[in-house]
């Protein structure tokens, strides 16, 4: 079995470095930061970490059904493809900033992209 991006870039330590960078980009983005109003920042950061770990092919137990349930209240508030695209943008930019090679960023983006329909409740 080939190594996951998660293992190639250094596992948990690398993801920890990515979480603050990624979450800061998301919170600074007026297109999507309204969805985070009133949320607990620590819990949110832990969720962002779980998301990044999953996108990088690291250990996780999230199912499509979890993704669907976890975002249903946001879909009701209007979460759509444009918002998902914005998050994908920040994912790519974060990994680039950390010096992750383009082909690995592509792999991570593909995994994240595979959750689109579940996240958006389609």
């Amino acid at each position, binding site marked *: 079995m080939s190594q996951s991006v998660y293992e190639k870039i250094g596992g948990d330590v690398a993801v*920890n470095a990515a979480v603050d960078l990624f979450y800061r980009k998301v919170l600074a983005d007026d297109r999507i930061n309204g969805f985070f109003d009133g949320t607990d*920042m620590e819990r949110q*950061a*832990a*969720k962002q970490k779980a998301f990044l*770990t999953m996108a990088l092919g690291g*250990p996780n137990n999230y199912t499509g059904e979890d993704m669907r349930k976890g975002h249903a209240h946001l879909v009701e508030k209007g979460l759509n493809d444009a918002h998902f695209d914005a998050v994908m943008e920040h994912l790519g930019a974060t990994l680039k900033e950390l010096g992750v090679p383009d082909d690995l960023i592509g792999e991570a983006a593909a995994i994240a992209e595979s959750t689109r329909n579940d996240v958006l409740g389609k």
Partner: protein
Amino acid sequence: MTKIVYQGRSYERRDDETVLRCLLRNDVRAPYSCESGACQSCTMQATKGVIPSSAQEDLKETQKVLGYFKPCVCKPEGDLEVVALDDAHQQKQQLTVVEKSFLNDEILRLRLSCDESFKYHAGQFINLFKDDLIRSYSLASLPDSESMLELHIKRVPMGVVSNWLCDDVQVGDPLSVAGPLGECFYHETENEEGLLAVGTGSGLAPLWGIVRDALTHDCDKTIILCHGGVTPELLYYVDELRELEGAHDNFTYYPCVSTGDGSDLPDGFSLGFPNDVAFSKQPVLSKWQVFLCGHPDMVNNTKRKAFLMGAALKDIHADPFLAASRA
């Protein structure tokens, strides 16, 4: 095979098993979700034994000091005694009121006797009981040099506990408390640039402890404290803080007043909310430790802004429910 003691009961842990898996196999109902060390929903506190550092990866420095760890990724070398976070330190004890004085029209200073067996970090809080009611109050005292606990209690209109403390409780009375609790305290971190403390009203209490704690441990980093009130009369410890400022070149204190046009502002006071004043004095917060206490809206907004201005999430310390349940 090693032992895990959880809530007083002992369980044999298989060598390849995590602490969480061991407990679940023994039908212990423990919360968990990701089982990969990411979500932190299973976090527990070790009271005895050695925690592998990998099981504390990415927890706050203050949490590590308290022995918090992630059981889902923890395979300890030896035996470990652990407790659920909800049950940690909930044992009540009686402390006697030794001093009672008002710091201004709405804030009472209460000092309670305590001996060396009461271990805490400056800035943590205690839960105080009046019959079935529980209120959380931050500790303003220093553990090493003051043999009493100091609380700052804001009189809340209609507040059952705060009015009871202000009006009925007398010197010599015993009070029932549990704690210490909370992660809002100073612990030196690698490469830190400075400390920013922002508080409103009686939210000064933990900050008064934290700032003095850092200074007495010879912290030579820049320390900024912004304390806010609606009017100058609602601020307190102004002279004490100015004295502290005079004695330490690296410490700056900004008393802030949020109402009026500034024309009748006393000398040395800033106009505005303490969080706005803080960000104008220190707009870059990368590698800074940030301490927040007071009104919940101020705390939450400031937390977010401090993070966007560069502070790492694990370096922002606040006990948000503390402000919400303060009475």
